[in-house]
């Protein structure tokens, strides 16, 4: 058995938890400003999923970049790749379901895993204009297995109903997504407080595990809708010593993953 780490931060726990979702047969594409997913991909490949195919920065097939530094679509991400994937090929593989896995986050996430990164308020005259749907407007509709992450688990992020559906999650729940002909969908939500999945029938978001030191009450108080709570709520599996070492020394010695916590102090 691998030795369990004692000293780790919540960003590290999130990276490790996400990394463990990736399988050796997966083909994973990363998007913009995605330090936590990129660190997780690199970690998965360095540990349990050596065969994982990463289209780094959406271009470099099976690339081996230096430790994280610039942004996550930077050309430095393509280093030592086997191919610069033409973007038409990327889109055809995404449409066709060859590239099946994608990670994203957003300003609002609702109980059925729909995500909003477009506006708070009315579209035409928004209270807050957000950056925009970008890749999530595609990936939610194109049958991806979606992993959602967020570093701000608050009632402002987790809302009953998103103001705007930038990303198609399970829509109105149940078989709504299936009826529209969309396959797969959100698999897991990894936050700074806990891990959640979706109840298979209703597609309602469900607590899966709590990060160390976080209580059920705290999570529910920070969630803007009623979470499904299973009978047993295990703690989130802790990282191993080796995972933490790889992350700190090899993959992300500059701590770029912590950029995603701007304004929100890390905790664990």
């Amino acid at each position: 058995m691998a030795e369990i780490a004692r000293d780790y931060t919540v960003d590290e726990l999130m990276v490790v938890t996400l990394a463990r979702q990736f399988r050796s047969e997966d083909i994973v594409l990363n998007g913009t400003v995605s330090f936590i997913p990129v660190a997780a991909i690199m970690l998965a490949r360095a540990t349990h999923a050596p065969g994982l195919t990463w289209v780094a920065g959406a271009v470099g097939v099976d690339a081996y970049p230096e430790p994280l530094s610039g942004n996550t679509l930077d050309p430095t991400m393509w280093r030592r790749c086997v191919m610069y994937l033409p973007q038409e090929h990327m889109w055809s593989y995404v449409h066709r379901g060859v590239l099946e896995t994608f990670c994203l986050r957003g300003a609002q996430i609702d109980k059925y895993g729909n995500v909003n990164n477009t506006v708070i308020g009315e579209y035409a005259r928004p209270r807050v204009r957000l950056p925009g749907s970008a890749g999530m407007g595609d990936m939610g509709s194109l049958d991806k297995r979606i992993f959602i992450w967020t570093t701000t688990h608050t009632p402002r992020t987790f809302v009953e109903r998103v103001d705007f559906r930038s990303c198609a999650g399970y829509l109105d729940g149940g078989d709504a997504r299936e009826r529209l002909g969309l396959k797969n969908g959100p698999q897991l939500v990894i936050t700074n407080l806990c891990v959640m999945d979706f109840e298979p029938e209703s597609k309602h978001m469900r607590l899966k595990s709590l990060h160390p030191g976080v209580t059920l009450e705290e999570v529910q108080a920070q969630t803007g809708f009623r979470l499904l709570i299973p009978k047993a709520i295990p703690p989130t599996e802790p990282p191993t010593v080796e995972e933490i070492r790889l992350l700190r020394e090899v993959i992300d010695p500059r701590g770029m993953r912590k950029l995603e916590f701007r304004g929100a102090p890390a905790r664990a």
Partner: protein
Amino acid sequence: MATKKADKVMTLTEAASLVRDGDTVALQGMGTQMSPLALVRELIRAGKRDLTIVMIVGGIGLDWLIAAGCVRRVIAIIVNLDEFGMAHAFRRAVEAGEVVMEEYSEHQLLSRLLAGAYGLPFLVTRSGLGTDLIALHPETTRIIACPFTGQEVVACRALVPDVAILHAHRADRYGNVQFFPKPIWLDADVFPRAAKKVIVTVEEIIENEEIRRTPIHTGIPYFKVDAVVEVPYGAHPCSLYPFYAFDRALFQEYATASRTVEGTRAFLDRYIYGPTTHAEYLQRVGGAEMLLRIRKWE
């Protein structure tokens, strides 16, 4: 459209005059990468008005244009400063109702541009099904059924920009434009095919003979190009891989300054309206020290 082997080299000012008030301008740029920002600054100094800016990923150049009051409408999938956060001038202008954001998913926007490039009235995608994006603009995206299977897809209406503006590694005087290692992002690939006019700024103008020795790098043929401008570091503060990295310091300075209207105005005065030449701009944003710094990718 220029089809001849004419000499198309001009100055930034001459090239900017090809863009008219009210034009739909396809502006290259991928986050912190490859954007014709020297030309964008020239458009701002020339006081262009009522532009519709098309970018796949809207970035710093778009935010400057909006802050300077050049823009009426934005067609994009996202607008931000990448890891440096929100594009505040964009955010403020949309929240104030001064600028309209026409938002698409990426493959919807690509399908609109490809339809334009192919002279087809529309193309289809599955992207965006189930989102609120499709209902935003019934004149350009609409759900239709496949005539063979009945399956629902999103029809995306052709988009033909008046002008495409791009920055690349090098070109000859006729407008054969080369990229290193090759054209990667689709804006460089699709914009010149979709747009009526094409303006390209490059790091270096080279001989036609050199192009013929290395045709594998050519991404845009001369018969589709109307203007070529030599502007070394013409993408600054964006990167032009592998020549130079993006300028973190200036991105950060703008990200901070642009939090307020006053800060934005001061930034524009200092770095865009102030310098009268590109050399003066480069000097003001850090001169030789900066130019040496961005040659290192780290």
